[in-house]
């Protein structure tokens, strides 16, 4: 080759031809079309990210939730007995993955801390290419990750999060919550504890000091004060406290005759056990038996609390002892797989994974724009809670709320709670503007 004949013009021409030639194949590949929306799956698989607390005060709930996500992935891919895929009415899911792509997953440990949760969600989105993030078990974490997913252009299917803020002042268009919230707990539990303990009571709140605790305290206060109860005081306790002695000792001499524990997970197990050790339930105050109420608790917490949970009233999103077909199918799959009945944290995670997959199938795309449209206003049934609505205005699910009580005489180690009332969805429905916030536009760009 005679290089001495290459002048500037020839060099530029040939460079342009070579450059165009090199670029040509990529113009027509799916990789460039993938830029339509963030983390569009290009191969034969789609990756979901499960972000749950594996350490910290909510680790028990997180571990159970992760098991449920793994089960959901199995069922979506057509493995196992199919679980709730068989009872989900009118679903587009066929057990062949999502839109024909095999479902894979990555998981992360939120450590029950917002910063760690955001770091692990970022890793899953940026490094692992997760197209949807699900998880929570702490509203602080859920709110932080929901906002991150909105900015990152992926869908957030909230796991266990009960703060009013998640679908209230902090709601986002890319985020959806199946779990119920503190307001619904308050409305559901107030008539039951009013009947059981009377209308003339004085309540003392111990509250986990973060978004969930604050909103639950407010909702329960409003609901019990409407009954005629008086709130003596509300004391905030740091999330993850182990020793509650200094917070419990003032309770008895405060003039209160009911202690309301706005604690969850290990915090609740510790505070309730210690309250019982301090003899609170054996006391009389204002001429009445001293009572303890835990507005939100689960079977897992009941196991941890042992004897202390007997007779305690609370609320739950779901219970494995419900009689509908969806619940039976899920409990059977989960029990056979892991040897224990599923918790409400597990149930909500499993359902969220299925609902996301269903939305992708009906929209015919993984694009968050299509998924959001499919989920907004979606009415579904057969997933354990009866007919349920995903309200378009705030992305909150509306379904019956369970009022539960720790069983006095359990038949076996799994039989710890009894459902005392199922409060219909209409009674716990509220105006979407009540807790403020704006959904804003959907974001699908990275």
């Amino acid at each position, binding site marked *: 080759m005679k290089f001495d004949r290459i002048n500037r013009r020839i060099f530029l021409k040939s460079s342009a031809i070579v450059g165009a030639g090199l670029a040509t194949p990529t113009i027509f590949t799916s990789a460039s079309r993938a830029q339509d929306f963030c983390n569009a799956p290009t191969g034969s698989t789609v990756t979901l990210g499960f972000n749950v607390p*594996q*350490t*910290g005060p909510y*680790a*028990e709930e997180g571990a159970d939730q992760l098991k449920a996500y793994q089960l959901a992935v199995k069922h979506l891919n057509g493995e196992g007995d199919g679980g709730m895929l068989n009872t989900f009415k009118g679903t587009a899911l066929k057990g062949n993955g999502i839109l024909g792509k095999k479902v894979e997953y990555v998981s992360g440990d939120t450590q029950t801390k917002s910063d760690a949760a955001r770091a692990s969600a970022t890793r899953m989105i940026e490094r692992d290419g997760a197209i949807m993030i699900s998880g929570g078990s702490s509203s602080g974490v859920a709110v932080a990750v929901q906002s991150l997913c909105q900015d990152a252009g992926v869908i957030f299917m909230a796991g266990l999060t009960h703060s009013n803020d998640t679908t209230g002042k902090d709601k986002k268009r890319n985020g959806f919550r199946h779990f119920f919230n503190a307001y619904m707990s308050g409305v559901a539990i107030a008539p039951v504890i009013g009947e059981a303990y009377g209308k003339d009571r004085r309540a003392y709140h111990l509250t986990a000091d973060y978004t969930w605790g604050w909103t639950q305290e407010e909702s329960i206060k409003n609901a019990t004060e409407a009954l005629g109860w008086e709130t003596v*005081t509300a*004391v905030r306790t*740091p999330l993850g406290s*182990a*020793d509650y*002695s*200094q*917070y419990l*000792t*003032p309770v*008895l*001499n*405060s003039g209160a005759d009911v202690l309301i524990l706005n604690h969850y997970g*290990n915090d609740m*197990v*510790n505070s309730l*056990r*210690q309250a019982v*050790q*301090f*003899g609170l339930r*054996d*006391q009389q105050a204002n001429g009445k038996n001293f009572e303890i109420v835990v507005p939100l608790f689960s079977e897992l917490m009941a196991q*941890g609390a*042992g004897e202390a949970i007997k007779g305690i009233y609370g609320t739950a999103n779901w219970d*494995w*002892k419900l009689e509908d077909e969806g619940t039976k199918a899920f*409990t*059977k*799959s*989960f*029990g*056979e797989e892991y040897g224990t*009945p599923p918790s409400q944290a597990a149930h909500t995670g499993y359902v969220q994974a299925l609902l996301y997959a269903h939305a992708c199938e009906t929209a015919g795309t993984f694009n968050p724009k299509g998924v959001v449209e499919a989920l907004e206003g979606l009415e579904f049934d057969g997933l354990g809670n009866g007919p349920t609505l995903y309200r378009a205005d705030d992305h909150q699910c509306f379904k019956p709320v369970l009022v539960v009580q720790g069983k006095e005489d359990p038949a*076996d180690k*799994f039989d710890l709670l009894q459902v005392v009332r199922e409060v219909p969805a209409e009674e716990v429905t509220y105006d979407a503007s009540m807790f403020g916030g704006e959904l804003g536009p959907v974001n699908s760009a990275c």
Partner: protein
Amino acid sequence: MNEFVLQLLNGLDKGGAYALIALGLTLVFGTLGVVNFAHGALFMIGAFCAVVFSRLLQLETVTVDPERLTPWGSPMEIRTPLVQAWLGDFGAFLVQYSVPLSIFFAIPVMLLVGLAMERGLIRFFYKRTHAEQILVTFGLAIVIQEIIKANFGANPIPVSAPAALSGSADVGAWLGLGGGIFYPWWRLAYLGFAISIVALVIVFLQFTTYGMVVRAGMEDRQTVGFLGINIQRRFTVVFGIAAVVAGLAGVMYTPIVPPSYTMGMDFLVLSFVVVVVGGMGSVGGAVLAGFLLGILQSFASMNEIKSILPGIDQVIIYLVAVVVLLTMPRGLMGRKGVMET
């Protein structure tokens, strides 16, 4: 008045734990001159001794009962504890009292752990700077923490107090203050235990020949060495005793707060503050500061105080430390010359 008594008891209880940990910490500092950041880990290992011991007592045989089904249709597993199956009522008693009984398991284990720690690592750092000692012992604490996490998981493990001590005592009636002052039996037992251990250590140091030599060594190591006494060996034993004291504090603490791998670190920082406030190397100072800070922390969490100064319960210990160090730079009972050369 009732609340005052209850918060005082809370403070004494917390103070008991602080004092027991700080006691060992200050002993090691006073004798070996080592700032041992792995001391919190010893407290945690003690707590896990109780976990291991109660698990050993509760080893089970699993049989399947085909008559009873789980909610998902598989036969129910029936678990029978081996100790109860072999020893009957005595076995049940052992299981019930596993926490106090694990003291006997923890003493040799902690002594061995303490001696291994001192001989295996810490003795190589006697002549190094305090900064290097802190770095290496802090690293050791993290290693121990991760070993425990790998073996027992990250979640707290609930351990029950014996049924006889799981209720609460009518302290008001004892004190003649009327009813309404109830305090958990186990916490009272912990307080009694902490006071006994502190008393035993002080008696050992003050009234035994061995203790006298140790104290002499703390004052002037070289002269004691000239008298032909192997003071290094005695100091090693003191390290072992410090480990046992921290370990026993951990064992007895398990029914109060379920043990987790982070519990050592949670207490370590507070215990260092206690040692510094009490005076580095002073046994009496550590005990005094332990109880004092425990009580102050409890009173600071009274609603009446928090309504004036919100959040004071979270910072009171550090505020007191600042005030004490500004007014008494050597701490409450610190001796001249310690950490000043």
